[in-house]
Protein backbone atom coordinates (compact mmCIF):
# COMPACT_ATOMS: atom_id res chain seq x y z
CA UNK A 1 0.00 0.00 0.00
CA UNK A 2 1.41 3.40 -0.98
CA UNK A 3 1.21 5.99 1.73
CA UNK A 4 1.31 9.66 0.87
CA UNK A 5 1.89 12.43 3.37
CA UNK A 6 -1.43 14.15 3.82
CA UNK A 7 -1.98 17.60 2.37
CA UNK A 8 -0.75 20.13 4.89
CA UNK A 9 -2.22 23.51 5.68
CA UNK A 10 0.75 25.30 4.13
CA UNK A 11 0.36 23.33 0.92
CA UNK A 12 -3.30 24.31 0.65
CA UNK A 13 -2.49 27.94 1.44
CA UNK A 14 0.28 28.22 -1.17
CA UNK A 15 -1.89 26.62 -3.84
CA UNK A 16 -4.75 28.95 -2.99
CA UNK A 17 -2.42 31.95 -3.28
CA UNK A 18 -1.06 30.71 -6.63
CA UNK A 19 -4.61 30.28 -7.86
CA UNK A 20 -5.37 34.00 -7.33
CA UNK A 21 -2.32 35.75 -8.80
CA UNK A 22 -3.96 39.17 -9.11
CA UNK A 23 -5.06 39.29 -5.48
CA UNK A 24 -1.69 37.91 -4.37
CA UNK A 25 0.36 40.40 -6.37
CA UNK A 26 -1.75 43.43 -5.40
CA UNK A 27 -1.65 42.54 -1.69
CA UNK A 28 2.08 41.86 -1.75
CA UNK A 29 2.77 45.13 -3.61
CA UNK A 30 0.59 47.16 -1.27
CA UNK A 31 2.34 45.78 1.81
CA UNK A 32 5.76 46.05 0.13
CA UNK A 33 5.21 49.76 -0.46
CA UNK A 34 4.06 50.38 3.13
CA UNK A 35 6.73 48.31 4.87
CA UNK A 36 9.40 49.47 2.40
CA UNK A 37 8.53 53.11 3.11
CA UNK A 38 8.53 52.61 6.88
CA UNK A 39 11.83 50.69 6.69
CA UNK A 40 13.63 53.15 4.43
CA UNK A 41 12.42 56.34 6.15
CA UNK A 42 13.50 54.93 9.51
CA UNK A 43 16.90 54.12 8.00
CA UNK A 44 17.20 57.65 6.59
CA UNK A 45 16.43 59.27 9.94
CA UNK A 46 18.78 56.92 11.78
CA UNK A 47 21.46 57.36 9.10
CA UNK A 48 21.15 61.13 9.33
CA UNK A 49 21.37 61.03 13.13
CA UNK A 50 24.42 58.73 13.06
CA UNK A 51 26.07 60.91 10.48
CA UNK A 52 25.47 64.05 12.52
CA UNK A 53 26.91 62.37 15.61
CA UNK A 54 30.01 61.32 13.72
CA UNK A 55 30.41 64.80 12.25
CA UNK A 56 30.26 66.38 15.69
CA UNK A 57 32.58 63.74 17.14
CA UNK A 58 35.03 64.44 14.34
CA UNK A 59 35.31 68.00 15.54
CA UNK A 60 37.12 66.20 18.32
CA UNK A 61 37.15 69.03 20.84
CA UNK A 62 35.41 69.70 24.13
CA UNK A 63 35.28 73.41 23.28
CA UNK A 64 35.75 75.47 20.13
CA UNK A 65 37.00 79.01 20.64
CA UNK A 66 36.17 81.38 17.78
CA UNK A 67 36.26 85.14 17.07
CA UNK A 68 33.17 86.81 18.52
CA UNK A 69 31.17 87.29 15.27
CA UNK A 70 31.38 83.57 14.53
CA UNK A 71 28.49 81.58 15.87
CA UNK A 72 27.84 77.84 16.04
CA UNK A 73 25.86 78.11 12.81
CA UNK A 74 29.06 78.63 10.77
CA UNK A 75 30.60 75.45 12.17
CA UNK A 76 27.43 73.39 11.86
CA UNK A 77 27.07 74.46 8.21
CA UNK A 78 30.47 72.98 7.55
CA UNK A 79 29.43 69.70 9.19
CA UNK A 80 26.26 69.64 7.08
CA UNK A 81 28.26 70.24 3.92
CA UNK A 82 26.92 73.71 3.17
CA UNK A 83 29.64 75.91 1.77
CA UNK A 84 29.42 79.35 3.34
CA UNK A 85 32.09 81.97 3.55
CA UNK A 86 33.79 82.04 6.92
CA UNK A 87 35.27 85.53 7.02
CA UNK A 88 36.12 85.83 10.71
CA UNK A 89 39.72 85.22 11.67
CA UNK A 90 41.86 85.87 14.75
CA UNK A 91 45.58 85.93 15.38
CA UNK A 92 47.31 82.62 16.01
CA UNK A 93 48.56 84.05 19.29
CA UNK A 94 45.14 83.22 20.74
CA UNK A 95 46.21 79.55 20.86
CA UNK A 96 48.85 80.15 23.54
CA UNK A 97 46.52 82.36 25.51
CA UNK A 98 43.79 79.76 25.50
CA UNK A 99 46.28 76.99 26.29
CA UNK A 100 47.31 78.84 29.43
CA UNK A 101 43.77 78.94 30.84
CA UNK A 102 43.51 76.55 33.82
CA UNK A 103 41.79 73.30 32.88
CA UNK A 104 42.87 73.35 29.25
CA UNK A 105 44.80 70.18 28.45
CA UNK A 106 45.46 70.87 24.80
CA UNK A 107 44.68 73.67 22.36
CA UNK A 108 45.16 73.51 18.61
CA UNK A 109 44.42 76.02 15.85
CA UNK A 110 42.35 75.54 12.72
CA UNK A 111 41.67 77.89 9.82
CA UNK A 112 38.70 77.43 7.52
CA UNK A 113 38.56 78.61 3.94
CA UNK A 114 35.53 77.83 1.85
CA UNK A 115 35.88 77.03 -1.82
CA UNK A 116 33.33 79.28 -3.44
CA UNK A 117 32.30 79.84 -7.06
CA UNK A 118 35.04 79.21 -9.56
CA UNK A 119 35.67 81.27 -12.62
CA UNK A 120 33.98 79.49 -15.54
CA UNK A 121 36.54 77.56 -17.54
CA UNK A 122 39.16 77.83 -14.77
CA UNK A 123 41.49 74.82 -15.02
CA UNK A 124 43.72 75.65 -12.09
CA UNK A 125 41.51 74.14 -9.34
CA UNK A 126 39.96 70.98 -10.82
CA UNK A 127 39.65 69.22 -7.47
CA UNK A 128 36.17 69.06 -6.04
CA UNK A 129 36.02 69.95 -2.35
CA UNK A 130 34.05 72.25 -0.06
CA UNK A 131 36.53 73.59 2.48
CA UNK A 132 40.25 73.87 2.90
CA UNK A 133 41.05 73.47 6.57
CA UNK A 134 44.43 74.42 7.85
CA UNK A 135 45.60 72.67 11.01
CA UNK A 136 48.71 72.31 13.11
CA UNK A 137 49.93 68.70 12.80
CA UNK A 138 52.08 68.97 15.93
CA UNK A 139 49.25 69.91 18.29
CA UNK A 140 46.32 68.44 16.32
CA UNK A 141 43.58 66.64 18.21
CA UNK A 142 41.02 66.45 15.40
CA UNK A 143 42.52 64.74 12.37
CA UNK A 144 44.93 62.32 14.07
CA UNK A 145 42.32 60.27 15.99
CA UNK A 146 40.45 59.48 12.76
CA UNK A 147 43.43 58.17 10.81
CA UNK A 148 44.92 54.73 11.37
CA UNK A 149 48.35 56.08 10.45
CA UNK A 150 48.93 59.77 10.75
CA UNK A 151 51.77 61.04 8.50
CA UNK A 152 53.99 62.72 11.08
CA UNK A 153 56.19 64.12 8.30
CA UNK A 154 53.33 66.05 6.65
CA UNK A 155 55.00 68.26 4.01
CA UNK A 156 53.83 71.52 2.53
CA UNK A 157 52.60 69.69 -0.56
CA UNK A 158 50.72 67.00 1.38
CA UNK A 159 47.02 66.85 2.23
CA UNK A 160 44.60 64.71 4.16
CA UNK A 161 41.14 64.54 2.67
CA UNK A 162 37.60 63.46 3.29
CA UNK A 163 36.64 60.26 1.48
CA UNK A 164 34.75 62.06 -1.33
CA UNK A 165 37.73 64.13 -2.45
CA UNK A 166 40.42 61.71 -3.63
CA UNK A 167 42.14 58.40 -2.86
CA UNK A 168 45.33 57.81 -0.92
CA UNK A 169 48.45 58.53 -2.95
CA UNK A 170 46.63 60.53 -5.63
CA UNK A 171 47.60 64.06 -6.52
CA UNK A 172 45.12 66.90 -6.44
CA UNK A 173 45.51 70.37 -7.91
CA UNK A 174 44.42 73.43 -5.95
CA UNK A 175 45.19 76.93 -7.19
CA UNK A 176 47.57 75.41 -9.75
CA UNK A 177 49.54 73.65 -7.00
CA UNK A 178 49.87 69.87 -6.81
CA UNK A 179 49.18 68.27 -3.43
CA UNK A 180 49.69 64.59 -2.59
CA UNK A 181 47.08 62.74 -0.55
CA UNK A 182 48.74 61.28 2.57
CA UNK A 183 45.59 60.28 4.40
CA UNK A 184 41.90 59.68 3.73
CA UNK A 185 39.31 59.99 6.50
CA UNK A 186 36.59 57.34 6.83
CA UNK A 187 33.16 58.19 5.51
CA UNK A 188 31.08 60.31 7.88
CA UNK A 189 28.15 61.14 5.59
CA UNK A 190 28.61 64.82 6.51
CA UNK A 191 30.24 67.78 4.80
CA UNK A 192 33.54 66.68 6.36
CA UNK A 193 33.73 64.03 3.61
CA UNK A 194 34.37 66.89 1.13
CA UNK A 195 37.04 68.69 3.13
CA UNK A 196 40.78 69.03 2.39
CA UNK A 197 42.99 69.24 5.50
CA UNK A 198 46.43 70.83 5.03
CA UNK A 199 49.04 72.22 7.39
CA UNK A 200 48.43 75.86 8.32
CA UNK A 201 51.53 76.91 6.37
CA UNK A 202 50.19 75.12 3.32
CA UNK A 203 46.90 76.98 3.63
CA UNK A 204 48.69 80.34 3.84
CA UNK A 205 50.82 79.34 0.84
CA UNK A 206 47.72 78.34 -1.18
CA UNK A 207 46.05 81.63 -0.20
CA UNK A 208 49.07 83.48 -1.59
CA UNK A 209 48.85 81.38 -4.76
CA UNK A 210 45.15 82.20 -5.06
CA UNK A 211 45.96 85.89 -4.95
CA UNK A 212 48.73 85.42 -7.54
CA UNK A 213 46.27 83.60 -9.81
CA UNK A 214 43.71 86.37 -9.36
CA UNK A 215 46.22 88.82 -10.77
CA UNK A 216 46.50 86.68 -13.90
CA UNK A 217 42.80 85.79 -14.05
CA UNK A 218 40.72 88.74 -12.87
CA UNK A 219 37.71 87.56 -10.90
CA UNK A 220 39.36 84.30 -9.87
CA UNK A 221 38.37 83.21 -6.38
CA UNK A 222 40.80 84.32 -3.70
CA UNK A 223 41.34 82.70 -0.30
CA UNK A 224 41.08 85.77 1.88
CA UNK A 225 43.34 84.54 4.65
CA UNK A 226 46.83 85.64 5.59
CA UNK A 227 49.71 84.17 7.58
CA UNK A 228 49.05 83.74 11.30
CA UNK A 229 45.29 84.06 10.90
CA UNK A 230 43.15 81.26 12.26
CA UNK A 231 39.40 80.58 12.50
CA UNK A 232 39.19 78.58 15.69
CA UNK A 233 41.09 77.12 18.62
CA UNK A 234 39.97 73.60 19.44
CA UNK A 235 40.30 72.78 23.10
CA UNK A 236 40.61 69.51 24.98
CA UNK A 237 39.70 69.94 28.64
CA UNK A 238 41.83 68.30 31.32
CA UNK A 239 40.16 65.32 32.98
CA UNK A 240 38.49 66.35 36.24
CA UNK A 241 37.61 69.82 34.98
CA UNK A 242 34.15 70.85 33.96
CA UNK A 243 33.84 71.77 30.29
CA UNK A 244 31.39 74.54 31.17
CA UNK A 245 33.76 75.99 33.79
CA UNK A 246 36.72 75.96 31.43
CA UNK A 247 34.59 77.57 28.71
CA UNK A 248 33.56 80.30 31.15
CA UNK A 249 37.19 80.86 32.18
CA UNK A 250 38.21 81.23 28.53
CA UNK A 251 35.46 83.80 27.99
CA UNK A 252 36.48 85.79 31.08
CA UNK A 253 40.14 85.63 30.09
CA UNK A 254 39.33 86.88 26.59
CA UNK A 255 37.29 89.76 28.00
CA UNK A 256 40.15 90.72 30.32
CA UNK A 257 42.57 90.69 27.43
CA UNK A 258 40.17 92.38 24.99
CA UNK A 259 40.38 89.39 22.69
CA UNK A 260 36.66 89.28 21.93
CA UNK A 261 36.37 85.49 21.73
CA UNK A 262 33.31 83.28 21.74
CA UNK A 263 33.17 79.72 23.09
CA UNK A 264 31.13 77.08 21.24
CA UNK A 265 30.12 73.88 22.97
CA UNK A 266 30.17 71.12 20.32
CA UNK A 267 27.09 69.53 21.89
CA UNK A 268 25.15 72.54 20.65
CA UNK A 269 26.43 72.06 17.10
CA UNK A 270 23.92 70.62 14.69
CA UNK A 271 20.98 71.70 16.85
CA UNK A 272 19.30 73.10 13.77
CA UNK A 273 19.91 69.86 11.89
CA UNK A 274 18.74 67.86 14.89
CA UNK A 275 15.56 69.91 15.04
CA UNK A 276 15.03 69.33 11.33
CA UNK A 277 15.62 65.63 11.87
CA UNK A 278 13.20 65.58 14.75
CA UNK A 279 10.55 67.33 12.62
CA UNK A 280 11.25 64.93 9.78
CA UNK A 281 10.92 61.98 12.14
CA UNK A 282 7.56 63.29 13.39
CA UNK A 283 6.30 63.70 9.81
CA UNK A 284 7.52 60.23 8.83
CA UNK A 285 6.02 58.72 11.98
CA UNK A 286 2.62 60.30 11.33
CA UNK A 287 2.61 59.38 7.64
CA UNK A 288 3.88 55.88 8.27
CA UNK A 289 1.30 55.29 11.02
CA UNK A 290 -1.50 56.42 8.72
CA UNK A 291 -0.16 54.31 5.85
CA UNK A 292 0.19 51.28 8.10
CA UNK A 293 -3.32 51.67 9.51
CA UNK A 294 -4.71 52.00 5.98
CA UNK A 295 -2.79 48.92 4.86
CA UNK A 296 -4.31 46.88 7.72
CA UNK A 297 -7.79 48.06 6.67
CA UNK A 298 -7.07 47.50 2.98
CA UNK A 299 -5.64 43.99 3.36
CA UNK A 300 -8.44 43.16 5.83
CA UNK A 301 -11.04 44.36 3.32
CA UNK A 302 -9.44 42.44 0.44
CA UNK A 303 -9.51 39.26 2.47
CA UNK A 304 -12.99 39.86 3.83
CA UNK A 305 -14.18 40.10 0.22
CA UNK A 306 -12.09 37.08 -0.71
CA UNK A 307 -13.61 35.07 2.11
CA UNK A 308 -17.09 36.12 0.95
CA UNK A 309 -16.27 34.71 -2.49
CA UNK A 310 -15.01 31.51 -0.87
CA UNK A 311 -17.94 30.84 1.47
CA UNK A 312 -18.89 27.69 -0.40
CA UNK A 313 -15.30 26.42 -0.35
CA UNK A 314 -15.13 27.07 3.39
CA UNK A 315 -18.50 25.35 3.91
CA UNK A 316 -17.32 22.32 1.95
CA UNK A 317 -14.06 22.16 3.92
CA UNK A 318 -16.06 22.22 7.16
CA UNK A 319 -18.42 19.53 5.81
CA UNK A 320 -15.55 17.17 5.02
CA UNK A 321 -14.00 17.58 8.45
CA UNK A 322 -12.18 20.90 8.82
CA UNK A 323 -12.54 22.39 12.31
CA UNK A 324 -13.21 26.06 13.06
CA UNK A 325 -9.56 26.32 14.14
CA UNK A 326 -8.41 24.92 10.80
CA UNK A 327 -10.40 27.54 8.86
CA UNK A 328 -9.09 30.29 11.15
CA UNK A 329 -5.51 29.12 10.58
CA UNK A 330 -6.09 28.74 6.84
CA UNK A 331 -7.25 32.34 6.38
CA UNK A 332 -4.71 33.78 8.83
CA UNK A 333 -1.82 31.90 7.27
CA UNK A 334 -2.82 33.08 3.80
CA UNK A 335 -2.84 36.71 4.90
CA UNK A 336 0.31 36.47 7.05
CA UNK A 337 2.26 34.72 4.27
CA UNK A 338 1.33 37.40 1.75
CA UNK A 339 2.00 40.26 4.12
CA UNK A 340 5.35 38.88 5.31
CA UNK A 341 6.36 38.29 1.69
CA UNK A 342 5.34 41.88 0.96
CA UNK A 343 7.34 43.03 3.98
CA UNK A 344 10.48 41.22 2.83
CA UNK A 345 10.15 42.59 -0.70
CA UNK A 346 9.50 46.06 0.73
CA UNK A 347 12.66 45.90 2.82
CA UNK A 348 14.72 44.71 -0.16
CA UNK A 349 13.21 47.47 -2.29
CA UNK A 350 13.80 50.07 0.43
CA UNK A 351 17.40 48.93 0.86
CA UNK A 352 18.03 49.05 -2.88
CA UNK A 353 16.44 52.49 -3.16
CA UNK A 354 18.55 53.83 -0.32
CA UNK A 355 21.73 52.35 -1.74
CA UNK A 356 21.02 53.90 -5.10
CA UNK A 357 19.66 57.25 -4.01
CA UNK A 358 20.18 57.61 -0.24
CA UNK A 359 22.57 60.54 -0.65
CA UNK A 360 20.22 62.25 -3.09
CA UNK A 361 17.23 61.76 -0.77
CA UNK A 362 19.20 63.05 2.22
CA UNK A 363 20.33 66.06 0.20
CA UNK A 364 16.78 66.87 -0.82
CA UNK A 365 15.74 66.58 2.84
CA UNK A 366 18.77 68.72 3.79
CA UNK A 367 20.21 66.25 6.29
CA UNK A 368 23.57 64.46 6.35
CA UNK A 369 23.41 60.72 5.69
CA UNK A 370 25.42 57.63 6.44
CA UNK A 371 24.25 54.02 6.05
CA UNK A 372 23.50 52.89 9.62
CA UNK A 373 25.62 50.18 11.22
CA UNK A 374 24.72 46.55 10.32
CA UNK A 375 23.43 45.52 13.80
CA UNK A 376 20.96 48.39 13.69
CA UNK A 377 19.87 47.50 10.14
CA UNK A 378 19.46 43.85 11.21
CA UNK A 379 17.35 44.78 14.24
CA UNK A 380 15.28 47.16 12.13
CA UNK A 381 14.73 44.40 9.54
CA UNK A 382 13.59 42.05 12.33
CA UNK A 383 11.21 44.73 13.63
CA UNK A 384 9.87 45.34 10.11
CA UNK A 385 9.26 41.60 9.74
CA UNK A 386 7.45 41.62 13.08
CA UNK A 387 5.40 44.60 11.92
CA UNK A 388 4.54 42.74 8.70
CA UNK A 389 3.41 39.70 10.66
CA UNK A 390 1.36 41.93 12.99
CA UNK A 391 -0.20 43.62 9.95
CA UNK A 392 -1.12 40.20 8.60
CA UNK A 393 -2.58 38.96 11.88
CA UNK A 394 -4.62 42.15 12.43
CA UNK A 395 -5.84 42.16 8.82
CA UNK A 396 -6.79 38.50 9.04
CA UNK A 397 -8.65 38.75 12.36
CA UNK A 398 -12.07 39.74 11.06
CA UNK A 399 -12.23 37.53 7.94
CA UNK A 400 -10.69 34.59 9.80
CA UNK A 401 -12.99 34.83 12.82
CA UNK A 402 -16.15 35.48 10.83
CA UNK A 403 -15.52 32.66 8.36
CA UNK A 404 -14.48 30.11 10.96
CA UNK A 405 -17.50 30.82 13.17
CA UNK A 406 -19.97 30.55 10.33
CA UNK A 407 -22.19 27.50 10.41
CA UNK A 408 -21.10 25.21 7.53
CA UNK A 409 -24.65 25.10 6.20
CA UNK A 410 -24.82 28.93 6.12
CA UNK A 411 -21.41 29.16 4.48
CA UNK A 412 -22.51 26.80 1.72
CA UNK A 413 -25.83 28.62 1.26
CA UNK A 414 -24.11 32.05 1.13
CA UNK A 415 -21.65 30.72 -1.41
CA UNK A 416 -24.37 29.59 -3.79
Amino acid at each position, binding site marked *: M*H*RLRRIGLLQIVTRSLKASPFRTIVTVLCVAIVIGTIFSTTLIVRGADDSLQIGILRMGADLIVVPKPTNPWHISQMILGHVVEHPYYMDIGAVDKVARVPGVQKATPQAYAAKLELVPGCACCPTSFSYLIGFDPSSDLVVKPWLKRFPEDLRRTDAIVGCNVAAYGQNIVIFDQVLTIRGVLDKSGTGLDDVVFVALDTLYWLATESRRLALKLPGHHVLDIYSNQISAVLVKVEPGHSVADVGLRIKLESMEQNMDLNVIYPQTLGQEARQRLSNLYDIFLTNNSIMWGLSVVLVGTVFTLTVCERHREIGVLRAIGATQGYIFKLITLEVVLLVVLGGVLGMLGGTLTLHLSGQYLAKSLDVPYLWPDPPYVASLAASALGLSATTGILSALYPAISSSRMEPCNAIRKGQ
Partner: protein
Amino acid sequence: MLSLEGVSKHYSVGNNIVKAVDNVHLAVNRNDFVMVTGRSGSGKTTLLSLIGGLTKPTSGRILLKGVDISSLSDKDLSGARSRTIGFIFQFPSLIPFLRVLDNVRLPASFTQEKFADLDRAKELIRAVGLSKRSDSYPSQLSMGEQKRVAIARALVNEPEIVLADEPTSDLDEATEKEIMQIIKEVHEKSTTVVMVTHSADLAHYGSRRFKMTAGVLREV
Protein backbone atom coordinates in the same frame (compact mmCIF):
# COMPACT_ATOMS: atom_id res chain seq x y z
CA MET B 1 -26.88 3.96 13.23
CA LEU B 2 -28.73 7.26 12.97
CA SER B 3 -31.92 8.50 14.52
CA LEU B 4 -33.78 11.78 14.46
CA GLU B 5 -36.14 12.41 17.36
CA GLY B 6 -38.64 15.19 16.80
CA VAL B 7 -36.14 17.27 14.87
CA SER B 8 -37.28 20.67 13.66
CA LYS B 9 -35.44 23.51 11.95
CA HIS B 10 -37.17 26.86 11.77
CA TYR B 11 -35.93 30.07 10.14
CA SER B 12 -37.14 33.58 10.72
CA VAL B 13 -37.78 35.45 7.51
CA GLY B 14 -38.95 38.93 8.45
CA ASN B 15 -41.91 38.41 10.78
CA ASN B 16 -42.61 34.92 9.44
CA ILE B 17 -41.23 31.66 10.69
CA VAL B 18 -40.37 29.16 7.99
CA LYS B 19 -40.53 25.53 9.13
CA ALA B 20 -37.86 24.00 6.87
CA VAL B 21 -37.94 20.74 8.81
CA ASP B 22 -40.87 20.05 11.07
CA ASN B 23 -40.86 17.45 13.82
CA VAL B 24 -39.08 14.73 11.89
CA HIS B 25 -38.71 11.25 13.37
CA LEU B 26 -36.43 8.93 11.47
CA ALA B 27 -34.40 5.85 12.34
CA VAL B 28 -31.78 4.78 9.83
CA ASN B 29 -30.21 1.35 10.23
CA ARG B 30 -26.80 0.16 9.09
CA ASN B 31 -26.76 -0.52 5.33
CA ASP B 32 -30.08 1.23 4.69
CA PHE B 33 -30.44 3.15 1.44
CA VAL B 34 -32.80 5.92 2.46
CA MET B 35 -34.19 7.82 -0.49
CA VAL B 36 -36.01 11.10 0.29
CA THR B 37 -37.88 12.72 -2.57
CA GLY B 38 -39.71 15.99 -2.60
CA ARG B 39 -40.13 19.21 -4.51
CA SER B 40 -37.62 22.03 -4.41
CA GLY B 41 -37.94 23.96 -1.15
CA SER B 42 -39.55 21.08 0.71
CA GLY B 43 -36.66 20.97 3.23
CA LYS B 44 -34.67 18.00 1.87
CA THR B 45 -31.28 19.79 1.86
CA THR B 46 -31.90 21.19 5.35
CA LEU B 47 -32.74 17.67 6.57
CA LEU B 48 -29.44 16.38 5.14
CA SER B 49 -27.54 19.32 6.68
CA LEU B 50 -29.07 18.51 10.07
CA ILE B 51 -28.08 14.85 9.79
CA GLY B 52 -24.53 15.82 8.81
CA GLY B 53 -24.21 18.32 11.67
CA LEU B 54 -23.80 21.22 9.26
CA THR B 55 -26.50 23.11 11.10
CA LYS B 56 -28.11 22.77 14.51
CA PRO B 57 -31.77 21.82 14.95
CA THR B 58 -34.16 24.31 16.49
CA SER B 59 -35.54 21.43 18.54
CA GLY B 60 -35.17 17.67 18.79
CA ARG B 61 -32.16 15.38 18.91
CA ILE B 62 -30.01 13.77 16.24
CA LEU B 63 -28.21 10.66 17.42
CA LEU B 64 -25.31 9.38 15.36
CA LYS B 65 -24.18 5.95 16.60
CA GLY B 66 -26.02 6.77 19.83
CA VAL B 67 -24.37 10.15 20.41
CA ASP B 68 -26.36 13.39 20.30
CA ILE B 69 -24.38 15.41 17.77
CA SER B 70 -25.66 18.69 19.24
CA SER B 71 -23.68 17.90 22.39
CA LEU B 72 -20.39 17.45 20.52
CA SER B 73 -17.68 20.09 20.52
CA ASP B 74 -16.64 21.58 17.18
CA LYS B 75 -13.55 19.37 17.18
CA ASP B 76 -15.49 16.18 17.89
CA LEU B 77 -18.24 17.04 15.43
CA SER B 78 -15.67 17.83 12.72
CA GLY B 79 -13.95 14.55 13.55
CA ALA B 80 -17.24 12.70 13.16
CA ARG B 81 -17.85 14.41 9.83
CA SER B 82 -14.43 13.43 8.50
CA ARG B 83 -14.46 9.81 9.74
CA THR B 84 -18.09 8.71 9.82
CA ILE B 85 -19.86 10.80 7.18
CA GLY B 86 -19.19 11.32 3.50
CA PHE B 87 -20.90 14.26 1.79
CA ILE B 88 -21.90 14.47 -1.84
CA PHE B 89 -23.23 17.91 -2.65
CA GLN B 90 -25.72 19.11 -5.20
CA PHE B 91 -23.40 21.86 -6.42
CA PRO B 92 -19.81 21.66 -7.72
CA SER B 93 -17.96 21.26 -4.46
CA LEU B 94 -14.39 20.48 -5.42
CA ILE B 95 -11.66 22.82 -4.21
CA PRO B 96 -10.79 24.68 -7.41
CA PHE B 97 -7.05 25.03 -6.85
CA LEU B 98 -6.43 21.35 -6.01
CA ARG B 99 -5.99 18.62 -8.61
CA VAL B 100 -8.40 15.68 -8.71
CA LEU B 101 -6.12 13.37 -6.70
CA ASP B 102 -5.57 16.04 -4.03
CA ASN B 103 -9.29 16.80 -3.83
CA VAL B 104 -9.98 13.11 -3.25
CA ARG B 105 -7.38 12.70 -0.53
CA LEU B 106 -8.19 16.06 1.12
CA PRO B 107 -10.59 14.65 3.78
CA ALA B 108 -7.73 12.46 5.01
CA SER B 109 -6.01 15.70 6.08
CA PHE B 110 -8.67 16.22 8.70
CA THR B 111 -8.21 12.86 10.37
CA GLN B 112 -5.54 12.03 12.94
CA GLU B 113 -3.68 9.96 10.33
CA LYS B 114 -0.34 11.42 9.27
CA PHE B 115 -0.52 9.77 5.88
CA ALA B 116 -3.31 9.45 3.37
CA ASP B 117 -3.76 6.10 1.64
CA LEU B 118 -2.66 6.92 -1.87
CA ASP B 119 -3.73 3.54 -3.23
CA ARG B 120 -7.24 4.02 -1.89
CA ALA B 121 -7.51 7.50 -3.39
CA LYS B 122 -6.30 6.18 -6.76
CA GLU B 123 -8.58 3.15 -6.52
CA LEU B 124 -11.58 5.39 -5.88
CA ILE B 125 -10.68 7.63 -8.82
CA ARG B 126 -10.36 4.49 -10.96
CA ALA B 127 -13.71 3.25 -9.63
CA VAL B 128 -15.45 6.43 -10.76
CA GLY B 129 -13.75 6.12 -14.15
CA LEU B 130 -11.39 9.06 -13.96
CA SER B 131 -7.95 7.44 -13.74
CA LYS B 132 -6.69 9.54 -16.61
CA ARG B 133 -7.90 12.80 -15.04
CA SER B 134 -6.06 12.50 -11.69
CA ASP B 135 -3.86 15.49 -12.46
CA SER B 136 -6.64 17.68 -13.84
CA TYR B 137 -8.07 20.69 -12.04
CA PRO B 138 -11.85 20.78 -11.41
CA SER B 139 -12.28 23.51 -14.01
CA GLN B 140 -10.96 21.06 -16.63
CA LEU B 141 -13.68 18.52 -15.83
CA SER B 142 -17.29 18.27 -16.97
CA MET B 143 -20.07 18.59 -14.39
CA GLY B 144 -20.58 14.81 -14.40
CA GLU B 145 -16.86 14.20 -13.88
CA GLN B 146 -16.82 16.66 -11.00
CA LYS B 147 -19.71 14.80 -9.38
CA ARG B 148 -17.81 11.53 -9.72
CA VAL B 149 -14.73 13.05 -8.10
CA ALA B 150 -16.95 14.35 -5.28
CA ILE B 151 -18.23 10.79 -4.76
CA ALA B 152 -14.66 9.47 -4.62
CA ARG B 153 -13.79 12.19 -2.10
CA ALA B 154 -16.82 11.29 0.03
CA LEU B 155 -15.61 7.71 0.24
CA VAL B 156 -11.88 8.21 0.87
CA ASN B 157 -12.12 7.95 4.65
CA GLU B 158 -14.35 4.86 4.37
CA PRO B 159 -17.36 6.54 6.01
CA GLU B 160 -20.14 4.52 7.56
CA ILE B 161 -22.78 6.79 6.13
CA VAL B 162 -22.91 8.75 2.88
CA LEU B 163 -25.19 11.77 2.60
CA ALA B 164 -25.99 12.62 -1.01
CA ASP B 165 -27.79 15.85 -1.86
CA GLU B 166 -29.27 15.75 -5.37
CA PRO B 167 -26.12 14.10 -6.76
CA THR B 168 -27.62 13.81 -10.24
CA SER B 169 -29.00 17.31 -10.68
CA ASP B 170 -27.86 19.13 -13.83
CA LEU B 171 -26.72 15.87 -15.42
CA ASP B 172 -27.88 14.21 -18.62
CA GLU B 173 -29.72 10.91 -18.40
CA ALA B 174 -26.71 8.72 -19.21
CA THR B 175 -24.48 10.43 -16.66
CA GLU B 176 -27.28 10.29 -14.09
CA LYS B 177 -27.43 6.53 -14.53
CA GLU B 178 -23.65 6.22 -14.16
CA ILE B 179 -23.66 8.26 -10.96
CA MET B 180 -26.56 6.28 -9.50
CA GLN B 181 -24.79 3.07 -10.38
CA ILE B 182 -21.71 4.21 -8.43
CA ILE B 183 -23.86 5.17 -5.43
CA LYS B 184 -25.64 1.83 -5.64
CA GLU B 185 -22.27 0.06 -5.58
CA VAL B 186 -21.23 2.13 -2.57
CA HIS B 187 -24.38 0.97 -0.79
CA GLU B 188 -23.76 -2.64 -1.79
CA LYS B 189 -20.37 -2.46 -0.05
CA SER B 190 -22.39 -2.10 3.19
CA THR B 191 -22.32 1.69 3.44
CA THR B 192 -25.43 3.41 4.69
CA VAL B 193 -26.73 5.97 2.18
CA VAL B 194 -29.16 8.81 2.76
CA MET B 195 -29.97 10.53 -0.51
CA VAL B 196 -32.36 13.35 -1.27
CA THR B 197 -33.63 14.14 -4.76
CA HIS B 198 -36.47 15.94 -6.44
CA SER B 199 -36.63 13.20 -9.07
CA ALA B 200 -39.27 10.59 -8.27
CA ASP B 201 -37.72 8.41 -11.01
CA LEU B 202 -34.75 7.72 -8.78
CA ALA B 203 -36.83 6.62 -5.80
CA HIS B 204 -36.56 2.94 -6.75
CA TYR B 205 -32.83 2.92 -5.90
CA GLY B 206 -33.68 3.31 -2.22
CA SER B 207 -34.32 0.39 0.12
CA ARG B 208 -36.50 2.78 2.13
CA ARG B 209 -38.39 5.61 0.49
CA PHE B 210 -39.61 8.84 2.04
CA LYS B 211 -41.39 11.87 0.76
CA MET B 212 -40.87 15.31 2.15
CA THR B 213 -43.51 17.98 1.89
CA ALA B 214 -43.22 21.42 3.53
CA GLY B 215 -40.72 20.10 6.08
CA VAL B 216 -42.73 17.06 7.01
CA LEU B 217 -41.21 13.63 6.33
CA ARG B 218 -43.39 10.67 5.51
CA GLU B 219 -42.37 7.10 4.66
CA VAL B 220 -43.93 5.79 1.47
